[in-house]
């Protein structure tokens, strides 16, 4: 799957000289006693597809609504394209928003919904029509232009909402859970369409989602949020492979977390964790000492009936097997009582598997498979 933009060198966030399109500077937002956003700093660059990811109530929607202008920061400034946007009312901002409910005007046809923003700009009638046609072609809704929103399907409504938000060619498009109302198959198709549209229009997209898979698929960078703070802002692969905390590791995908004690060796470090269990060897290169967490993804752990030759080998019994067709997840119970999840692709027929429930198996992983985390 293509999780990157076409230009694989697209990484303006690594270039210190690049001016960001959006710059949150020490932004705090309070609703009465409740702090929704807590002293947040964030730079988002032009042409980025930026995902805000987090559980509900983490402040991601508030962040987006501050960009749209429906909320104002209690403290701090937000710079959009070199300009402090606090005094700019929402109808004067060069941002447009695609609402979670789509918020299509039920009394207007698809074409009139798309034309709504253009007419407010005082665009000439001929230009409005041309632009509406262009947007309808972009989202492939030619046949439905004259229908009312309640006469089209959920997926089509989602496209109308996108076309309406893009019609005014905003510098920044905000998408609030844009695919939440679609079923899984349609959601996956639409994710790629969103990426294509983002690339072809060159607009900066900021998407709010609680679906980590969606964030990973579409975004050039993902920000994981918790309690009004950014926990980690990075590319999807780095978020997944190098989470900076157990919170991120646990939030994105599946993970085994072992608590232990790290000490330095020549190759890297070893982690002593369970009584009677071999120490985990890891070349993580971290300077962490003392109490640590070792996080390892299930798919990086191999399961076998015979003892393999690997940097780390653990022994346990198969407690449960979750068969998902293409892959199986094995829940293996160690002597310490700890249950480790291991995932293997079912590239052989299941009847040929050499172990099953209650069997003794070996779990193995390399010294680069996991990461050591302080918290």
């Amino acid at each position: 799957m293509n999780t990157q933009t076409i230009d694989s060198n697209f990484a303006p966030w690594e270039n210190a000289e690049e001016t960001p399109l959006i710059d949150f500077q020490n932004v705090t937002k309070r609703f009465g006693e409740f702090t929704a956003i807590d002293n947040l700093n964030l730079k988002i660059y032009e042409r980025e597809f930026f995902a805000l990811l987090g559980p509900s109530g983490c402040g991601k929607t508030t962040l987006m609504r501050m960009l749209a202008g429906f909320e104002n920061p209690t403290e701090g400034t937000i710079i959009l394209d070199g300009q402090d946007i606090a005094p700019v009312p929402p109808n004067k901002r060069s941002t447009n928003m695609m609402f979670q409910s789509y918020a299509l005007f039920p009394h207007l046809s698809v074409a009139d919904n798309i034309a709504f923003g253009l007419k407010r700009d005082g665009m000439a009638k001929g230009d409005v029509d041309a632009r509406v046609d262009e947007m309808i072609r972009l989202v492939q809704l030619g046949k439905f232009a004259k229908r009312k929103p309640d006469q089209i399907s959920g997926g089509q409504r989602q496209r109308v909402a996108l076309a309406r938000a893009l019609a005014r060619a905003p510098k920044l498009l905000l998408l609030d859970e844009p695919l939440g109302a679609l079923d899984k198959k349609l959601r996956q198709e639409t994710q790629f369409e969103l990426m294509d549209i983002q690339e072809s229009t060159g607009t900066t997209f900021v998407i709010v989602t609680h679906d980590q898979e969606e964030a990973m698929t579409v975004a050039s960078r993902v920000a994981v949020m918790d309690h009004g703070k950014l926990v980690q802002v990075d590319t999807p692969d780095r978020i997944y492979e190098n989470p900076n905390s157990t919170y991120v590791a646990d939030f994105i995908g599946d993970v085994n977390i072992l608590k232990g004690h790290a000490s330095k060796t020549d190759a890297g470090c070893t982690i002593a964790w369970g009584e009677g269990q071999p120490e985990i060897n890891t070349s993580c290169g971290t300077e962490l000492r003392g109490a640590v967490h070792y996080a390892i993804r299930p798919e990086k752990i191999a399961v076998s009936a015979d003892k393999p030759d690997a940097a780390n080998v653990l022994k346990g019994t198969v407690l449960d097997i979750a068969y998902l067709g293409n892959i199986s997840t094995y829940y293996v119970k160690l002597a310490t009582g700890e249950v480790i999840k291991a995932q293997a692709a079912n590239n052989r027929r299941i009847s040929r598997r050499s172990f099953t429930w209650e069997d003794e198996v070996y779990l193995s992983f390399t010294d680069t498979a996991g990461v050591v985390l302080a918290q």
Partner: protein
Amino acid sequence: MNILRRTALILPPYLWLLMLFLIPFAIVFKISLSEYALAIPRYMPQYDPETGIWHLITQLSFENYRLIGAGAVIAVLSGIALLAALIFLFYPRLRSAFSGETDGSLSDRLAAFLLGLAAAAVLVILGTIALSWFFPSLSGFVELQDHLYYTAYLSSLKIALFSTCLTLAVGFPFAWAMARSPAQYRPMLMMLVILPFWTSFLIRVYAWRGILSQTGYLNQILMALGIIDEPLVILNTNIAVYIGIVYTYLPFMVLPIYATLEKLDESLNEAAIDLGCTRTSAFWLVTVPLSRPGVIAGCFLVFIPALGEYVIPELLGGSNTLMIGKVLVEEFEKNGDWPVASAVAVILLLILIIPIVLFQRNQQKNQEAGL
């Protein structure tokens, strides 16, 4: 079995309709076709078992209808209906001619509507002239023997229309404020709107006499504040009737509008603002069009009872407040002319059928649209 069950289900409402509407209406209609008599009851019995039913039918007379000018009322009503139908025919075409495929601006629509109205009016007038030219005998149909009834119908129509507009002007902001207030206050506000119903309607209207009379509270306060020197004459004028109707029927306007506004998704408003609307233009372009079903329902709920209103003009209106409900009661009680009173009631019902049918259609359309 199935048919039996279905019949059992449908029967009660139809029986209800038969007993409480159709039978009384048939009686009133029968009286309206009979002749006045100084007897008890105050009309000539038409059906005589000896002469039979044929005699009854040949003896029926529309003399009462002729007296109250029913022909003219029907002619005016059909003229209005024709006008409305023609506007409905012209308006969409004119609008698309003015503004092309998309919905035009307000001025485009207004121009299209006015042009449609003008064209329809010209056609109706031409039609009327043509009719009277080719069928001169028709003039007898619309001839007025007594202007009282005709004027009362028109005056009722005017008062009902005007007070509906007033109630809308007061009720819409009311409903809007209710729908926009914090969710925890809404049930209480709703309660406050309904609360007056706990007191007798008659007492509440009487209370307005105390407020509006020359020595009433309103004049006392205004004079004490030095705003006026002479007491205002409000009671026993049409103004008092308008105040009474707006006051009495306000909840009927507020509740349906509130129901549609409350269901409106706040994100629609935000979307409009996000797309470049100011708060005001978002209100006119999104909130108002989407509240239309509620506005229409509210207007009918006020207009229909206001048209036949009797208590309010009787208690608050003056001798020159002419409303058909008042005329009807006078005819019935003071004149004791049951046949004419019945004819007045039948024509009033005919007039009311039009808005009731339109109201039903509006409700049905809303149900289909899931609003």
